C-alpha cells in the first residue's frame, strides 16, 4: 500500500495528514481513498472523475500532469501527495 500525504484543507476534512491506500495507479488509488474517506471526494475530483481545478497530485514529488495523469503507475514504495488549491510565495 502506498503512503498518501494530505495537505491544506484536506487534512482537516480527513482528520489526518497521511493514510496508506492500495491501488496500482492514481485513478485506482483515488477510488480506494474515497471509499475510506468519502469526505475527500468532491474536494479532489469532479463529477467526471477528473481532478478539480488547481488540485495537484504528485508521486514522489513529481506532478502526475507531466507523467501519465490519473493513469500514472504507483507502487507500494511510492509517496503520493495531494494538494488542494494553494497559492502564496
Amino acid at each position, binding site marked *: 500500500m502506498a503512503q498518501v*500525504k494530505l*495537505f*491544506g*484543507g484536506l*487534512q482537516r476534512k480527513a482528520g489526518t*495528514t497521511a493514510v496508506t491506500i492500495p491501488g496500482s495507479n492514481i485513478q485506482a488509488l483515488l477510488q480506494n481513498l474515497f471509499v475510506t474517506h468519502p469526505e475527500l471526494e468532491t474536494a479532489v475530483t469532479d463529477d467526471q472523475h477528473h481532478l478539480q*481545478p*488547481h488540485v*495537484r497530485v*504528485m508521486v*514522489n*514529488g*513529481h*506532478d502526475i*500532469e*507531466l507523467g501519465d495523469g490519473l493513469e500514472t503507475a504507483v507502487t507500494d514504495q511510492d509517496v503520493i*501527495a495531494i*494538494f*488542494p*488549491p*494553494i*497559492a*502564496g*510565495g
Partner: protein
Amino acid sequence: MEGWAGKILDIDLTSGSIETLPLDMEMARLFLGGRGLGARLLWDLVGPEVKPLDPENALIFTTGPITASSSQTSNRFNVSTKSPLTNTLLHANSGGWWGMQFKRTGYDAMIIRGKSETPVMISITEAGISIDDASDLWGKTVFETTEALGQDRNKRNVLCIGPAGENLVRIAAIMNDKERSLARGGAGAVMGSKNLKAIVVEGKEKNKPADKDQFKFMLYETGKLIKASPLTSQALPEFGTTVVMNVVNEIGALPTRNFQESQFEDAHKISGETITDTILVKNQACWACPITCTRITKTASGEEGEGPEFESAWAFGAQCGVGDLDAITEANFLCNDLGIDTISMGNTIGCAMEMAEKGFIDNDLRFGDATKFKELIRETAYREGLGDDLAEGSYRLAEKYGAPELSMTVKKLELPAYDPRGMQGQGLVYATSNRGACHETGNMLGPEVLSLPRLIDRFATQGKAGIVSVHQNSAAVIDSLVYCKFSAMAVAEEFFARTLTAVTGQLFTADDLMKVGERVWNLERLYNLREGFTSADDTLPDRLLNVPVAEGPSEGFVANLDPMLVEYYQFRGWDENGVPKPEKLEELGLAELVQPVM
C-alpha cells in the same frame, strides 16, 4: 484626480526646501507609476557617481494610477533608490494603508534628497507639509515610533525606520503601518543615512474614476473572479502565503541549511497548515482587499503580531534548519520592530551557521539552534559583535571571513525560498532580476509548480526564457500600477488594463500594459549597466550551478543556467553581452535616454 494626481512632492533635507513638481504626463503614460515611475525618476536623479548612502542618493516613494481608487488591492506603493546592499537600482513595494493615504494627500510621488543634520520626520496633512524635529524618536523601535506618531488605521498612517535603518544596516527595511515592509535591498539604510525617521500622512483627496460605470463593472467582475478562484477565496485566506511550504518541500525545492539540501524534514512544522492550527489568532486584509492573507498570530509566550509569511518562515526555518514555529514567529516580530528584511536576515544567519560549523568564524552558532535568533537580530540592528558583520548581509560576511562561496546571493541580495536546482526557471529569474536574487520580480512558482496558468516541466530549460520574461514584464507592470500580485492569481492583465482605462479615461489594452512592463524592465537593466554591471553578474552561487542535489525529487540536478541565459538575451532583444540592442530601445521609447551615455 482621475488616476494621476499630476504632482510630485520634492523634498531636499539638506536645504529643507519643499517643492511641488508637475508630473510629466508623457512619462506617466510610458511608466504608469510605482516601480516604473520610480525607475524613470531615479535614472535622471541618481547617476553612477553617487554612492547609495551619499546624501545625493534619492529615496523616491511612488504610487500608481489605480492607487486609492478602491479597485481590489489598490493599496500598494513603491520605493525606488540605489541599494546599499547591491549597488543596483532598488525597487521595493508594500501594502497596508500608507500608500493609499499618501496618494490621498494629492501626490503621485515623493522625492527625498539630501541629508538632514539632525533626525527629522516629514508630515503631510491638511495642516500642510513640514519637516519636523524627530530627535526624541531617534532610537525608538518601529512599533514605538508608529504608536507615538498616532497611527490610525485608514485616517493617519505612519512609515518609519527602526534602529536597523538608523544604524545603516544594509538589510534594513522601511516599515509602514507598523508591520508592513518595503523590505528588500536596504532602503531602510538609505532613509537612515538621510537622518529621516518617519513620514506621516493624512489625506482627503479621492482618486475618482473617469468612467464610473465601467469602473463599477470592473469592480464587480474582479470581485467575482477573486471569489470564484479557490486560490484567492480559500487557500490564501485560510492558510496564508505559508501554505506553499509543504508543496515546495515536496518537490525538493525548499532550500535547507543554507542550500546544502533541498528538502527540510520539519517543513510541516513551519507550514501554513500548522500556523492555522496553532498560532493563528485571525486573518487580516490590507486596504480594499477581499483576499485577507495576512496572519495575526500569537506565540506560546504571548507575543502577538503579523506573520510569518512564507518567505520569513523559510528564512528562519528551513534555511537555518529550525522547525520551532514560535521561535521563527518571534524572530519575525523582532525584525519588524527593529526594521529588518526577514529574508536577508534569516538567509544571512543560515550562512553564518554554515560558516561557524565549518570553522570560518569562531562561534558556537549551529544549524537547528533557534536560541540565538533574538540576540543576533538585536546585534544586527545595533551593529554589535557578530551582528556588525551580519548587518552587512551574507555576501560581505562570507567574503570577509574567506568563504564567499557560502553566500547564497545574486548581486549580493540574499536568495529567497526556492532552490533553482529543482525549479530551473526560478534560477533564471534570480540571475536576471534587476535588484538581485528575488522571486517577486517574476515568480516561477505558478508555472513550474502550481500550474498557473499551465504547468510546465520545472526541470526543462528550453522555452523557459520566454515564460520568465513574460512573468518579469507582468510583475513589473503590476508593481507600476500598483496592484498586489495575489490579485493576479484570479484576474489577468486584461482586467488591470480595463480598470486602468476606467480610472484614467485613457485607453490601455492588456498588451499596452505588458509593453510598459517590458519598458520598465529594460530601463532597470540600463540603469544597472550604467552602474557597471555586466552579464557576468547574471549568475547564481557556485553551489547551485555545480553541486547536484544529493537526494529527493530534484536529485542529480544543478541549475542549468547557461542555455536559458542565451535564450533569455535573445528573447529580450539584447546582445550576447546582455545589452539591449538599439532597435529594442527604439521600440520601447528608451533610445533617447541612453544617447548621451552609451
